[in-house]
């Protein structure tokens, strides 16, 4: 059955929530209760949330209701019902990365992005399902069961941030945080028919983001419209003393720039993204989306980005190498699962063998192999060099254009189980998202029509730290009816 995201009752936005609180049309406590009920109703079939945090949510709601009662100013995101991917640390609230190896783990601190949103008035409803350690593109690699796509219950919601995307699309949250290493925010946004943003590498602090691939990992938002994405970006972006890679580049007024005219902006369309493997119905919608941007006055330029076809191979060597190193910390000593073993080494091996799922083990194996003596130069070093060439493709493109426009995914949302037996086939579907991940640039996926009821996403890449331009284009596209092309 195909459902629309609007079939879940009142469509709250960040501003309408804040205004309703300020005008006393609803209290933060009532709003929180409403969302808890929605979750209770929908989550059993969707499996988008892994854990709920009602105590923390009501504590925040009471704080906000106190501000209203005293007639004080409300913070910018007051009352925003928020879902957070379970790879982001939340103090005292179980954070598992959808893995058995972290079962029951309660972090002693909050991720910076979560802390900043709560300080701005957001209400944390709970933690969302995802592929284990963010490794996957379908959410089927969760140790706690797959998530269903609220728009088509027999389909995957995308991944790895599938729970966050599904929660927003089903009206179980007004916005959500996900993480994007190779497409894990943009692709589920595309599959669930909502806008979703991957910021520039270094734009948002990674403090409290449980590491998968440190040179690629980013925190990014899902929302029901681009304006809400801009509001969240303005709150979470910027330097952080807890993450030296979070660049102290000034954060512009993203919302203020949304309505700037897009007429005359040059949009690059790389022919390399429209080669074999692109589903013809998706291609048709993306072409219609590009035509819409042209009608808005954007100037279309054909581009070549010749290293695109090497991006998947490059990504899966670099990401798995970094993962094999990052995941070495799960050894049964400091947190999570411990299996019993007579010696320390035996305990390590048994804990990791029992705690990790198949996809995580597969990637640890691949990454360990690529970094091992005798293979390092041939695989890891080679991939790092090709990564430099992929980044150069982007830098050269941005010498000619203001933004790059592509499909987010080569295919519409697929059926649960459809690709489960062939990991390589699954990896190849990441072709359009991993390029921007490797280059470090920002990207957004914005709804671009439907094919047989299934949503298609248009991806817009911008220059490093050029989120404002990306949001501006996506906003213009959305306002012009991009979701209905």
């Amino acid at each position, binding site marked *: 059955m195909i459902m629309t995201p609007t079939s879940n009752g009142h469509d709250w936005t960040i501003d309408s929530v804040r205004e309703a609180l300020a005008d006393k049309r609803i209290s933060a406590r009532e709003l929180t209760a409403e969302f808890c009920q929605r979750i209770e109703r929908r989550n059993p079939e969707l499996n988008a949330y892994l854990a709920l945090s009602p105590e923390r949510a009501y504590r925040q709601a009471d704080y906000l209701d106190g501000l209203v009662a005293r007639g004080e100013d409300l913070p910018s995101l007051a009352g925003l019902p928020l879902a957070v991917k379970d790879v982001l640390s939340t103090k005292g609230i179980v954070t598992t990365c959808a893995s058995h190896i972290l079962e029951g783990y309660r972090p002693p601190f909050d991720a910076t992005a979560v802390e900043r949103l709560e300080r701005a008035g957001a209400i944390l409803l709970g933690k969302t399902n995802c592929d284990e350690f963010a490794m996957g593109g379908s959410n089927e690699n969760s140790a706690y069961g797959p998530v269903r796509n609220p728009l088509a219950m027999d389909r995957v919601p995308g991944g790895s941030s599938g729970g966050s995307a599904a929660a927003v699309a089903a009206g179980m949250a007004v916005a959500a945080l996900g993480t994007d290493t190779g497409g894990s925010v943009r692709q589920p946004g595309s599959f669930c028919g909502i806008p979703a943003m991957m910021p520039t590498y270094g734009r948002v602090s990674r403090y409290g983001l449980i590491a998968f691939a440190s040179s690629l990992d980013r925190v990014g938002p899902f929302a029901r419209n681009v304006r809400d994405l801009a509001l969240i970006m303005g709150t979470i972006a910027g330097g952080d003393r807890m993450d030296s890679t979070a660049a102290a580049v000034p954060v512009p007024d993203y919302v203020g720039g949304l309505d700037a005219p897009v007429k005359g902006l040059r949009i690059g369309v790389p022919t390399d993204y429209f080669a074999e493997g692109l589903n013809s119905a998706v291609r048709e919608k993306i072409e219609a989306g590009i035509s819409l941007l042209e009608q808005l006055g954007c100037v279309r330029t054909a581009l070549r980005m010749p290293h695109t076809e090497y991006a998947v191979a490059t990504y899966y060597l670099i990401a798995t190498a970094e993962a094999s190193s990052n995941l070495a910390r799960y050894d049964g000593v400091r947190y999570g699962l411990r299996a019993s073993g007579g010696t320390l080494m035996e305990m390590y*091996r048994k804990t990791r063998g029992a705690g990790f799922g198949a996809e995580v083990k597969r990637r640890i194996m691949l990454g360990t192999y690529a970094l091992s003596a005798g293979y390092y130069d041939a695989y890891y070093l080679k991939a790092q060099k090709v990564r430099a060439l992929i980044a150069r493709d982007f830098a050269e493109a941005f010498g000619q254009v203001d933004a790059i426009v592509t499909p987010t995914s080569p295919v519409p949302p697929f059926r649960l189980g459809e690709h489960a037996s062939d990991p390589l086939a699954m990896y190849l579907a990441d072709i359009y998202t991993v390029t921007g991940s490797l280059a470090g640039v920002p990207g957004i996926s914005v709804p671009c029509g439907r094919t047989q009821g299934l949503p298609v996403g248009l991806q817009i890449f911008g220059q490093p730290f050029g989120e404002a331009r990306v949001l501006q284009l996506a906003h213009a596209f959305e306002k012009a009816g991009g979701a209905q092309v």
Partner: protein
Amino acid sequence: MKITREDALRVAELAHLDLTEAEIEMFSRQLDSILTYVEKLNEVDTTNVEPMAQVAPPAASGQAAAGTPLRQDKPTPCDVVSDVLAGAPDASPPYFRVPRVIER
């Protein structure tokens, strides 16, 4: 075959992973097909290309605050031992307890 059963066992040993017979068989086969695929990188001429280990931070020029600033190396109070040990599967405050490593 690039990946033999022995290769898979060696990699599992390096990665401290206890694998079942079925996993060893499956991962050998899957890693073999993935590594065959990534060979396509050999088509790319990377002569004189510097490897990219991380995304370069924005140049500090122009914007005083840009780049990736380091904070001063000054100790600050860090009283987290009990919080940290609360998550340990086997704690003996102020330590983590593990199977015996050093024989008498």
